């Protein structure tokens, strides 16, 4: 062994350590952003939201069916807006191991992953300053913070979309066939949450535009787009065929042919502006910088595509006439708009908006970006808080019900039964829980009743062991039921009134017990 060989033994690890240090130093802004995202997300605290409780509970039932063959007890596929065998099962496994906080931590991990993927995607498209700013804008936005603390299938869907987008950008210079790999996360994203399909065209068009934007030929880009579209379409078709009629019915009912609401357009636009408006505005600025470049149109088209994607949720919900879940869906659009917004704000700060760009200012003022991100993060924190406090803290209710709930023949009528049913799942069966959305009851004469008459007849027959009302989504029905319960001889007594507070105001749980 020569002296040079000896030295090289030591030299290699040193180089590796140096590379690691350098890589870490290079990604320090990302690490800082992820830490801030974690810290801001963990400021949000509440008991389970009804969707969280529903998905985790459904996952437990599906898991029980898979492992032990126990009946599921409900056709979740028929009304879930994602395949029940995907996210809910993962959530149930995590719930068994770590509880609800564990499932929420999984969501946060997904959103952190999305931020990291957005960083690397933006860096490839527009350079490091845009990556730092774009990731910060996404990580600290209200929908991102909210979804990072919500155990629903939105977070994994966003991660899968981010993964697909990153891959299409990552492989822009490589063989067009490689882009087909992105079909897997895309189809999976759509399976986890059907509404993710709204963003498939963006990813496919990105696969096309990233090629000419990188200075390569348009036909090559078009080929990539065709390959990705074909692979995604084929996989989705196979997936739908395998999934069965229940899933297709659920897809139709919850997403494709969802019942229209009557929410005014102004409200939907206003809420969209509050939750993602500034990122969209900055993305438009980014498009302006790209247009100013006066090079082939592809980079500007790609920027406009990504920026315009931020509008999809608003347009879709305006078409449906509802703002339900808008705050979550805005987050999907931000994933695409944030890179261009990063470029826009970088340009406004005098930093290069993209590689080779001429700065707007003679001397860079990164403080503009720092201040803007700080202000937007401040307001995002203020917007995410009321979102997360939009449902009542159910800990008092669950504590009050715990000694009264037993497996067997008892029936529990609870306005939003998903939450106590989830928390008390070890001491009750699914069929024991009923809610105020729909109820069918056969009276003594054998007539099948529905809605208010059914509830009244059941109360007269003292069918329910416990009744919990909270003037929530079925407040009008609650009022009628309360009158019935208060009437002398109803057979029920008011056990407790449990005051809670949400961002919409005070809300009381009233618990009635069969006398």
């Amino acid at each position, binding site marked *: 062994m020569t002296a040079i060989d000896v030295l090289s033994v030591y030299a290699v690890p040193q180089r590796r350590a140096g590379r690691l240090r350098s890589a870490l*130093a*290079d*990604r*320090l*802004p990302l690490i*800082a952003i992820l830490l801030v995202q974690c810290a801001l997300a963990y400021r949000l605290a509440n008991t389970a939201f009804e969707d969280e409780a529903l998905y985790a509970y459904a996952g437990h039932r599906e898991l029980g069916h898979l492992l032990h063959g126990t009946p599921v007890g409900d056709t979740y596929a028929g009304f879930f807006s994602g395949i029940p065998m995907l996210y809910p099962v993962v959530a149930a496994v995590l719930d068994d191991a770590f509880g609800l906080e564990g499932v929420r931590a999984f969501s946060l991990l997904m959103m952190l992953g999305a931020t990291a993927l957005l960083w690397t995607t933006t860096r490839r498209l527009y350079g*490091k*300053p845009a990556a*730092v700013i774009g990731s910060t804008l996404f990580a600290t936005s209200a929908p991102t913070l909210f979804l990072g603390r919500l155990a629903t299938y939105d977070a994994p869907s966003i991660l899968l979309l981010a993964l697909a987008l990153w891959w299409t950008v990552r492989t822009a210079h490589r063989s067009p066939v490689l882009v087909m790999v992105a079909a897997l996360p895309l189809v999976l994203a759509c399976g986890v949450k059907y509404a993710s399909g709204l963003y498939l065209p963006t990813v496919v068009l990105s696969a096309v535009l990233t090629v000419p934007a990188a200075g390569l030929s348009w036909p090559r880009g078009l080929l990539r787009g065709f390959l990705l579209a074909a692979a995604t379409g084929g996989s989705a078709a196979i997936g739908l065929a395998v999934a069965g009629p229940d899933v297709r019915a659920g897809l139709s009912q919850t997403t494709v042919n969802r019942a229209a609401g009557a929410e005014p357009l102004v409200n939907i636009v206003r809420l969209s502006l509050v939750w993602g408006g500034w990122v969209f505005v900055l993305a438009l600025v980014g498009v302006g910088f790209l247009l100013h470049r006066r090079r082939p149109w592809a980079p500007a088209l790609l920027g406009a595509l990504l920026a315009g994607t931020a509008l999809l949720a608003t347009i879709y919900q305006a078409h449906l006439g509802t703002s339900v879940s808008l705050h979550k869906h805005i987050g999907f659009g931000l994933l695409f708009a944030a890179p261009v917004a990063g470029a826009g704000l970088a340009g406004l700060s005098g*930093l290069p908006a993209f590689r080779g760009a001429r700065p707007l200012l003679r*001397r*860079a*003022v*990164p*403080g*503009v970006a*720092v*201040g*803007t991100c*700080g*202000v*937007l993060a*401040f*307001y995002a924190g203020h917007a995410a808080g009321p979102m997360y406090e939009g449902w009542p803290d159910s800990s008092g209710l669950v504590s009050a019900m715990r000694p009264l709930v037993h497996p067997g023949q008892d029936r529990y009528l609870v306005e939003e039964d998903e939450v106590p049913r989830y928390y008390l799942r070890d001491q009750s069966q699914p069929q024991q829980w009923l809610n105020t959305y729909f109820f069918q009851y056969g009276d003594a004469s054998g007539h099948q009743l529905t809605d208010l008459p059914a509830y009244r007849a059941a109360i007269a027959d003292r069918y329910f062991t416990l009744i919990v009302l909270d003037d929530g989504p079925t407040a009008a029905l609650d009022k009628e039921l309360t009158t019935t319960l208060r009437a002398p001889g109803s057979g029920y007594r008011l056990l407790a009134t449990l005051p809670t507070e949400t961002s919409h105001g005070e809300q009381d749980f009233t618990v009635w017990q069969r006398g």
Partner: protein
Amino acid sequence: MATVVETVLDEERPDPTSAPAAPDPRGRLARLLASRPDLVITALLVATVVLVQGLNIDNFPTVSDDEGTYLAQAWAIQHGKGLAHYSYWYDHPPLGWVQIAALSWIPALLWHGPLVVMHARVIMLPVSAAGTALVYLVARRIDLPRWAAALAAVVFGLSPLSVTMQREIYLDNFAAVWMLAAFACALSPRRHLWHHIAAGLCAAVAVLSKETMLIAAPALVMAVWRGTDKATRKFSLVGFAIAFATIGAQYLLYAVLKGELFPGPGHNSLIGALQYQLGRGGSGDILKSGSVSNLTLHWWLVRDPLLIYVGTAASLAALAVRRLREIAVAAVLLVAVAMRPNGYLPAMYVIQVIPFFALAIAGTADACVRGLLRLRLGAIGRLGWLGLGRWRLGPRDLVAVLAIGLAGLVAPQWEAGDETADTAYSNNEYVAAANWIRANVPDPAHRRIVVDDAMWLDTVKDGFQPGLGAIWFYKVDLDPAVTRTLPHGWRDLDYVVLTSIIRQDPNGLPTVRAAIAHSTTVATFGSGQQQITIQKVDHSGSGQ
């Protein structure tokens, strides 16, 4: 020696060594911005302020009795009926509503429907535009950079309190603009004698528009002192004083010529009015909870707490900055007068303070920025530890962060306030009542209707006899010329339009109170505080 012809030819002959001038590659706007940046910035600011203040100007805020009074007095001038729609009693110098009369062709051009007052507010847009431009000009003349001058104009024109008050037909708006013009002339960089004379003229017009503007006069004298060269200061000060006194004396002269300088039986007088104004009950201590002044302050704070708090603090701080001192003195004097115990503090008083607050805020911000830019951040600013080795944070970044942070905190509040001003409908009840009277009161030429001044012009337009048929409610009991025509008291009245203004103030008006007590409600519009009812007086003596 070269001849004249040779010289001229040489001048005209192009230099063969120099290349032909390349066309300027910049666009027209860029060239204009480069050559006249202040003009472009001012135009943009004025356009923005006019847009925000002009939107929904007729519907918010609720029309006030004072607006109607000034407009009715302007109507009297236009129709050759004297200086007021009733006897002019020297309540204010008349130049304010003379200006309103001069501008009244603007709403007449645009609109002819019900409720004259709310649509006449469009008169105030050129006044606001002039005010915004003058604030920018004064800011530049006290050595503020463009961004600070623009900030002053934005505070002046876009604060929710400004948007609310500056769109109302108040004399204070005219006075404030003339006082700003006086400051602009006094601080003219050319230091020309005529500019200082113009400052005196403008100041006199300001005071004759609203007499309380006199409070800022010491600050203006300081500005003239600063704006003059030591060598010509005496001439400038004398010119300023003579101009001010010459115009100001016209008011006195008017009273003397009319024989109304001193109090006497059977006529109003300037000194009598002054005695009344000085002797009338104040509105209480501004800091004492429950006083009328305190309620007024509370109302200002509801519209924009930032302008009031930050403006007061900035005015005090600006006293310490030499180039801001005149502005600070004006603001502090106006604040001190507002805070005097048991003084009279009307809601519109704040209009006179707003321009000086705006300038003090912008000036203080500029002083802070200058201080921050001198800071050395050293190692703190290096971003190498964040993997951003190429960039470093300097004092400019600190300023940027602070500026964006403050803007981020203020802008949403202002946006909310201005959105209310631009979308709320506060005059629906008045419009409905005016329409009802037009459609349902027969033979108006021979009817007597008691209204507040916000509706007075409408009733005149409907055919009621000005003054004695359409009667401003105060005049029923307080003007002998009107009282003489009501020998049977309330029985001589036909209708009372009961608005919140009349409901607040019937105690000193026994005839109005009796008419209301002996009347029946024939129409009701709205509910709560804003409710308006049309009361038909029952001449037989019954009522509800």
